[in-house]
């Protein structure tokens, strides 16, 4: 169960990363920083809600709102103001650009929120514990699983069943062709990136109650969600779901069986997947453009 809860927030974060890669072809190293910003924003929002005397249930709304706020401010700003200037460069160059962005955002978070840890456990206490098949399970864990499922389903539905989603798929497939068909690519890019940022911030916001929010949060998240996205196949939603479950399971297994390898069990899995299926588990092999 621990594995599934862990996989849930991981899925939310990785979904954003895989979406951004699919549409913009950017492997975003700053994704973890946005996750951290989401966690900080949620911590601020929840303590604000508590100090205003609002009912405890409102703290959930506060976390959601904080994720929206982060997405709306940070998303378009970064995409339009920064990343758009580097389009057309090599994927590796863009990786370096987002690395630079990661360095900057690290310090910005320190400047805004300081270096002391924040604790907000109110929302997690809200749910209490549930008895399920003789096991005591944190209600908040269940809530997270539900949230992840909702995020995944909504993304899947929008992409596959709505017109705008199909336009996004067309852009993923071939941006130039879509542009010549009259698709406003810039808008698709901004929206996709903002949704990616939103998912990262959402993941951060809803994990905030379970951890202490402090500097250094982003570093581990980046590496783990990289692993998830690579395992599942870059740009694939099902892949992200399976990748998150695989990583969650690998981590839990390692914690229970051999605690000393917890840290790198994930990378072993990632290396193994890359070696045997370099495209990831859920990516079809593409013809190479010359």
């Amino acid at each position, binding site marked *: 169960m621990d594995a599934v809860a862990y996989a849930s927030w991981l899925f939310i974060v990785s979904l954003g990363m895989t979406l951004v890669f699919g549409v913009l072809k950017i492997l975003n190293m700053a994704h973890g920083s946005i996750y951290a910003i989401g966690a900080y924003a949620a911590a601020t929002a929840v303590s604000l809600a508590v100090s205003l005397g609002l009912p405890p249930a409102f703290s959930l709304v506060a976390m959601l709102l904080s994720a929206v706020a982060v997405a709306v401010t940070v998303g378009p700003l970064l995409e339009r103001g920064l990343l758009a200037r580097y389009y057309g*460069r*090599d994927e590796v160059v863009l990786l370096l650009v987002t690395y630079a962005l990661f360095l*900057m955002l*690290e310090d910005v978070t*320190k*400047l805004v929120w300081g270096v002391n840890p924040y604790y907000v456990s109110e929302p997690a206490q809200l749910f209490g514990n549930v008895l399920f098949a003789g096991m005591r399970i944190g209600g908040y864990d269940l809530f997270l699983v539900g949230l992840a499922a909702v995020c995944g389903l909504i993304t899947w539905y929008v992409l596959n069943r709505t017109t705008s989603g199909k336009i996004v798929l067309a852009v993923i497939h071939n941006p130039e062709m879509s542009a010549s068909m009259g698709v406003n690519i810039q808008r698709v890019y901004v929206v996709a990136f903002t949704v990616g940022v939103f998912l990262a911030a959402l993941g951060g916001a809803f994990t905030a109650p379970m951890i202490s929010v402090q500097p250094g949060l982003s570093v581990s998240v980046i590496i783990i969600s990289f692993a998830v996205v690579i395992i599942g196949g870059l740009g694939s939603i099902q892949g992200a779901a399976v990748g998150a479950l695989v990583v969650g399971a690998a981590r839990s297994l390692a914690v229970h069986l051999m605690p000393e390898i917890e840290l*790198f069990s994930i*990378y072993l899995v990632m290396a193994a997947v890359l070696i045997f299926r370099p495209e990831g588990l859920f990516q079809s092999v593409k013809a190479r453009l010359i």
Partner: protein
Amino acid sequence: MRSNRSLFMALLAAIVLILAGLLAPAWLQFLVTMSAANGLAVLGIVVLMRGGGATFGQGMFFALGAYAAALVPTWFGIQDAVLRIVIGTLVAGLIGALFAPLLVRYRGIFFAMLTLALSMVLFGLLSKSSLLGGSDGISIAKPTVLGMSLQSGNAEYVLYCLTVVVSVVAGWLVSVYWNSAAGLMALAVRGNPLRVEYLGASARGSLGTSFVICALLGGTSGAITAQALGHVEPNFANWTTSGELVFVAVLAGYRRVPAVFAASLLLEIVRSFSNLYFPNTWQLVLGVFMLLVIMFRPEGLGSLWPVAARRQADPGAAVPPLAEGQP
């Protein structure tokens, strides 16, 4: 003829630096030692970059070299600094050669991600292994250099000289390699590996060579750093270390060898002063600087060099500049 000129330049640089070191205070000697040592690891990344590979795992070879240099005194009783550097280099190169056949099947971000995964596995191993000091790392006793034992007064200067010599030799060898047939082929592989294959050469072989050179230099760098610091820790293999080295590589570009050491020195100076005066914003400054370099100087600061510019303009002497983003 060019290799004669670069040999002369290398000798001149070594002599000037060793003499200048006599005048420099100990802290400056240490700073130059550290930045030259880091420069070697960066030089490895630059060689790989020039050969069409991107790595986020140079920390792995850095750590391998450092740990090798730290362990040989206790395991085999080797006290000599030069010998330790050679061993560190060879260990890293050997491991690099083991993984090279696997890695050359990938390109671009997959190559980078796989190197990252490997180095994080090493990071995990090092931090958990009690034999290797766990997350605290291990300390190293002061080495002897070619039979001389180091006193506290001259230790910095001797290590400084040693580092200068090793760096200059490595830099010269790399510049010879770059102008050799194999080195020019690496540049072609960067441009378009498929084209190289059709011309009858092995793109994978070339990438593998670049990778092994990268590993060797990473090992040298680690072995020197370990002895200059007197301490090694698992963090050497962490991806933040690799990221910092990549940062310097981007800053330097792959046009000129000296640019690598200049960029490394620049970072080391900026880091020392920023840590002192504004510890919480210096990464911000680095990030902004890196973005500016990528935007305005995609070939790195090395392309500011007048000689490099002239050589680019001379079609007979050099390869034409490659367009970025070519698949």
